């Protein structure tokens, strides 16, 4: 299941857990949980396009000049890419 979700993530541009769930014939909630597990296992990572993503927006020195609603993206890590190559 994890590999299937990771493979789906490698092929899409926008995250839609409902579409992934439909394709894999499972529930959205389970897909969401698996995505969180992929984060924990460091197969994927996310960022909010921030210059200082290890600092909360409220304490960031650039908050007055930055976007107020960061856009979140997910990318596949090297560990994830290695796994995808094996699939």
């Amino acid at each position, binding site marked *: 299941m994890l590999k299937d979700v990771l493979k789906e993530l490698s092929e899409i*541009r926008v*995250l839609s857990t409902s579409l992934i769930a439909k394709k894999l014939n499972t*529930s959205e909630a389970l897909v*969401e949980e698996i995505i969180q597990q992929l984060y924990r296992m460091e197969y994927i990572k996310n960022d909010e396009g921030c210059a200082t993503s290890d600092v909360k927006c409220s304490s960031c020195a650039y908050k007055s000049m*930055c*976007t*107020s609603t960061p*856009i979140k*993206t997910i*990318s596949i890590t090297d560990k994830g890419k290695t796994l995808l190559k094996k699939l």
Partner: protein
Amino acid sequence: MNTIALVGNPNSGKTTLFNALTGSNQHVGNWPGVTVEKKEGKFKYKGNQYNVVDLPGTYSLGAYSEDEVVARDYILKGNPDIVINVVDATNIERNLYLTTQLMEMGVKVIIALNMMDEAKQKNIEINLDKLSKELGVPIIPTVAAKSQGLDLLIDKSIDSIKKEKYSNKSFSYGKDIDSEINEIEKILDNLDLQYPKKWIAVKLLEGDKEIYSLLSKKASQPIKDRLIDIEEKSSEYELEIVDKRYEFIGNIVNQSIKKPSEERETVTDKIDKIVTHKYLGIPIFALIMFLVFQLTFVIGQDLLGGYVADAIESMGEFVVSLLENINSPEWIISFLSEGIFGGVGAVFEFVPLIMVLYFFLGILEDTGYMARAAYIMDGFMRRLGLHGKSFISMIIGFGCNVPGIMSTRTLDNKKDRMIALLINPFMSCGARLPIYLVFIAAFFPSHGGIVLFTLYALGIIMALIMGKIFSKTLFKGESSHFIMELPPYRLPIFKYVLKDMWSKVWDFLHRAGTIIFFVVSILWVLSVLPFGVEPYSQESILGRIGTILSPIFIPAGFGTWQATVSLFAGIAAKEAVVAILGMVYAGVSEGTALVSAIQNVFTPLTAVSFMVMVLLYTPCAAVIGTVKHETKSIKWAAFMAIYPFVMGWILSVIVYQVGSLLGF
């Protein structure tokens, strides 16, 4: 006294349950050696006292975080008499992962299926008997927030404590892994370990660093060698084990839980069908941005415009007359009237327009539309061979190019990062706005929206063209893949939009009051020296510097020393362009507004070519410094100073020359 440990996901209601059981009879400290909070309490039930430990909320019991290690160490070494696993009934799939790991530990577990009231509201039907049978543990429905189900929970917990054996079900990880587990258990047979051997075997196969470290200290060399073999294959085993857990959870959920159908098209989906359409997406984005700029002028200029300008003019005249009445030296009057009120004041006049623009951009961000804009542009940019994530840093660059450039750090691929970094300054930052607004007010007062839209669009087009050129020349290679999360649309929360708008405007005012003040002060001195020359004339030091450099801009149509010095002052800070123009062309004491002065010196065509130069030329010193810092290379910082200047010059010359040929 029996001890009960509470474990569960964050937000499952675990702490609510803890508080409901213990009331005020609790103690908060830290787990030894770590910064993780430890909560313990006591309660009395049917004449007996019980100890309760509220373990840190975790999603699993691996070694991914300090919280997880603390929780699992307590469960295995702290010897609680029973573990109550608090599970959120509205989100069972997520919560059961932890449950499967508790089952592997071989401890006595009872599940408090919490938030049953919310599950009922969401029409989630749970077959408790089936779920209990599949998991092999008792399940008690609770609503901890209302203290419902707690008596039954405690009764069942006491029953479980009294039982000799736990009844957790174990499950198979597949033939290969089960066989590995059996083999490892045999290897560990003679070792004195505090943890169940089967659990250790599973952890070793998962590559758990904590367990490897523990065994390395206790095991003999042959066992250590075997551990190395296992560790090498652990990433594959880990995946299989985790997959089996989810397969188990998936099966249980299918059999025991019924949720309302998820096949509903939300409002967000309906809007996105149009807004992110393959062909309509970009035109819709362009239209929305045009409307934003148009509204900015209607509200910011037509309705609110003039108030600030009048206020600054009145304030300046008041200060000048006050100083004249007390016979102040002429140079002080000149500095304040032409330098500060004429220069810095010229920047402040456009605050209403800037406020309105930031307000509308804030609404677009807060509703979630800007994420769609990034998605639409991502698709377009990928077709050009550019990394779509660059557009996210470009959106940030519309506010200020400094965080825009810094945000390129999130691009892992060096090629993508360098291209995004080098094209970011073509995003017209907030500091350039006053410059455009002055020239629009002078020559295009009825077409402000379209002029501003055209300038921003030109910046984006130039960024894409240069990005394409860089990707084919300096930075060849494949772009990396990424997925965007589009948040659901929501109505903007005006409190936050206004707060954000004010934060940006305040930053603008702060810069005007500090950096611009400093730049204007220095240039004012240069514009009145040497002594004896007419202030702000070509014979001043500033005038002479400008005269030497101005021939560069003759082909672009604005080869005057005043325009030249203002452009070079803009390299310190872009707002300084307007401040310097205000200082050299107008002064409060002369009663000549900057806009009128510009109308006498520029033409509509040269105004356009000047604005194109401002849009594209060398970014401010802060941006150049940021490039140096991010690339750790003076070469790239110098490149960033020079190539936009060249691009800006080329474009502005083309605009002027072609415009002249066409008779404008």
